[in-house]
C-alpha cells in the first residue's frame, strides 16, 4: 500500500512523533496552567532526548488560557519557561480541538520545510472556578449571537439535541448510551493519568442524575486540569539523530462546520468531521478499514457514536449496536478510546487533542497501558464547538 502520498501529486516531507509527555488529568490544586504546560513539555523533550537548542518552533493549544487560566500570551510564557530563546512560539485556539490544531500547524511547518523540530503543547486549567463560570465559558464556543446561545444551550444540551435525534432516527434504546461510558470507564481504569480510574456499572450509569435529557452524569466528560505535549521532527532529522521507534504522521486534516445548533445540516453528523476524515484518509493513502485503533472525541457518550459514523469506521446507525456487542473494547475488532477517552481520562480542553495523539503513538509503539493487539495504523479525531472545527490525524508505526 502506498501511504502518505501528497494528494496534489509528488512526494513530501513527512513529520514523525519522537517524544511525548503528559501530566495527570483531574482536579490538580495548586498548579497553574503554565505549570501544567511546562511539566508536560519538559517530559516530552526529555523523552525525545532533545534540548532547547534543538527546537525550531513551539505550538501551544489552549482554549481558555485567559478566561480560566488567568494567563495571556501563553506560548511566549511557555517558551521562556523552557528556555527556548527567540524561537517562534504561537498559541492556537479551536475550542476543544485546540491541541490538534497546534499539532496540525506544527506538522505543516515541518512538511513545508520551514522547521525541523517542533514542540506541541496543550493545556488547560479549568478547576478552581464555579461550575457556572466554566459552563458559560465553554458555551461561548458557540456563535454567541446565535439563538441557541441566547436560549441557554449548554454543551451538554447541544449533544443532548444530537442524542435525541440519533435515538429517534435509528430507533435506538436510550439505555444503550450507558454502554459508551461503561466501556470508556473500564478502559480508563488502566490509565494511571486518567481523571477517573474507577469503572462504573451499567446500573450506576443509568441511575445517575440527569444533566440534559437524555444525557446523564456519566454521559458527560468532566471539568479537568491537565497538560500534554509532543515533540515532532522531520523524518530526515529523526534518522540523522538515531531516534528510536518514531511514529509517522501520515496525515492531519482540518475542516470547518456549523458554529451553532440551528445551523447544522444534520443532527446526527458533524460535517466538519466527515470532511476532515475524508481528507485525512486520502492524504494517508488508506481507508477506514485500515485503522487498527482510534481515539475519538467522546465529550459526551453520543459523540462517540457520531464520531464512529462520521469517520466511516461504522455504517450509519450502527454505532450503538457495535458498541453494545463489544467491538469497540480493547480486544474487540476496533478498539476505540483505549485511554478511557474524554469521559474517563478527562477533558482539559487544550490538552485533549494532544493527549489523543500521545495515546495513539503509544499504541503504535506497543507501549500503551491498555494495549490493542498489533496496532499498526491509528487515528485521532478531535472536535471543537458544535463541530465548527474538526481535526483528524492518521499515524502509522514507522517501518
Amino acid at each position, binding site marked *: 500500500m502506498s501511504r502518505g502520498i501528497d494528494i496534489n501529486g509528488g512526494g513530501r516531507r513527512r513529520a514523525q512523533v519522537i517524544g511525548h509527555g503528559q501530566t495527570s488529568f483531574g482536579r490538580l490544586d495548586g498548579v497553574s496552567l503554565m505549570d501544567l504546560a511546562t511539566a508536560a513539555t519538559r517530559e516530552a523533550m526529555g523523552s525525545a532526548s532533545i534540548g532547547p537548542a534543538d527546537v525550531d518552533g513551539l505550538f501551544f493549544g489552549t482554549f481558555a488560557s485567559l478566561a480560566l487560566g488567568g494567563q495571556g500570551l501563553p506560548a511566549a510564557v511557555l517558551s521562556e519557561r523552557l528556555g527556548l530563546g527567540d524561537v517562534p512560539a504561537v498559541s492556537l485556539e479551536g475550542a476543544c480541538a485546540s491541541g490538534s490544531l497546534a499539532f496540525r500547524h506544527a506538522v505543516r511547518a515541518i512538511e513545508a520545510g520551514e522547521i525541523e523540530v517542533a514542540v506541541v503543547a496543550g493545556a488547560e486549567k479549568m478547576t478552581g472556578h464555579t461550575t457556572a463560570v466554566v459552563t458559560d465559558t465553554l458555551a461561548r464556543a458557540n456563535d454567541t449571537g446565535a*439563538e441557541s446561545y441566547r*436560549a*441557554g444551550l449548554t454543551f451538554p444540551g447541544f449533544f443532548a439535541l444530537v442524542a435525541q435525534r440519533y435515538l429517534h432516527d435509528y430507533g435506538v434504546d436510550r439505555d444503550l448510551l450507558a454502554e459508551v461510558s461503561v466501556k470508556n470507564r473500564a478502559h480508563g481504569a488502566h490509565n494511571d493519568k486518567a481523571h477517573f480510574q474507577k469503572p462504573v456499572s451499567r446500573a450506576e450509569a443509568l441511575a445517575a442524575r440527569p444533566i440534559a435529557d437524555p444525557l446523564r452524569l456519566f454521559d458527560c466528560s468532566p471539568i479537568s486540569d491537565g497538560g500534554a505535549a509532543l515533540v515532532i521532527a522531520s523524518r530526515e532529522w529523526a534518522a540523522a539523530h538515531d531516534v528510536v521507534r518514531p511514529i509517522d504522521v501520515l496525515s492531519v486534516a482540518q475542516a470547518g462546520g456549523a458554529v451553532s445548533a440551528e445551523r447544522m445540516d444534520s443532527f446526527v453528523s458533524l460535517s466538519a468531521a466527515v470532511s476532515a476524515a475524508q481528507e485525512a484518509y486520502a492524504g494517508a493513502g488508506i481507508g477506514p478499514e485500515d485503522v487498527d485503533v482510534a481515539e475519538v472525541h467522546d465529550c459526551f457518550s453520543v459523540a462517540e457514536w457520531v464520531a464512529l459514523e462520521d469517520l466511516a469506521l461504522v455504517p450509519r446507525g450502527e454505532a450503538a449496536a457495535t458498541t453494545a456487542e463489544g467491538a469497540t473494547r480493547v480486544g474487540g475488532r476496533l478498539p476505540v478510546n483505549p485511554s478511557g477517552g474524554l469521559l474517563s481520562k478527562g477533558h482539559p480542553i487544550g490538552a485533549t487533542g494532544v493527549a489523543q495523539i500521545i495515546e495513539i503513538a503509544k499504541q503504535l509503539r506497543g507501549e500503551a497501558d491498555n494495549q490493542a493487539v498489533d496496532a499498526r495504523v491509528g487515528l485521532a479525531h478531535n472536535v471543537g464547538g458544535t463541530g465548527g472545527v474538526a481535526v483528524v490525524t492518521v499515524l502509522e508505526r514507522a517501518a
Partner: protein
Amino acid sequence: MTGTVLTFTRIHVGVEGPREEPYAVIVADFDGERICARAEGELAWLRIGAPVRLEGEAGGDGHRRLVSARSDGPGAIPG
C-alpha cells in the same frame, strides 16, 4: 407561527447550575427555516415531530429574539 420540532432537550443543569425545573431548548423547522428557542413550564408535550408555536418578535440588534416556545398539546395541531 407554527413549526415542527426537529430535536430538543430538557436542560436540568443550565449555565447557572442545577435547576429545580428544567427548561427546554428546541430546534424547530418553520417552513424550511431552522429556529432555536427556549420553552419553560409544562413540557410533557415535547417530542420530535410535535407542532410548536413561537412567541416573540425580532429584536432590535439584528438577531431574532425568540425566548419561548409552546404547543397546544399533542394532536392539537397536525405534526
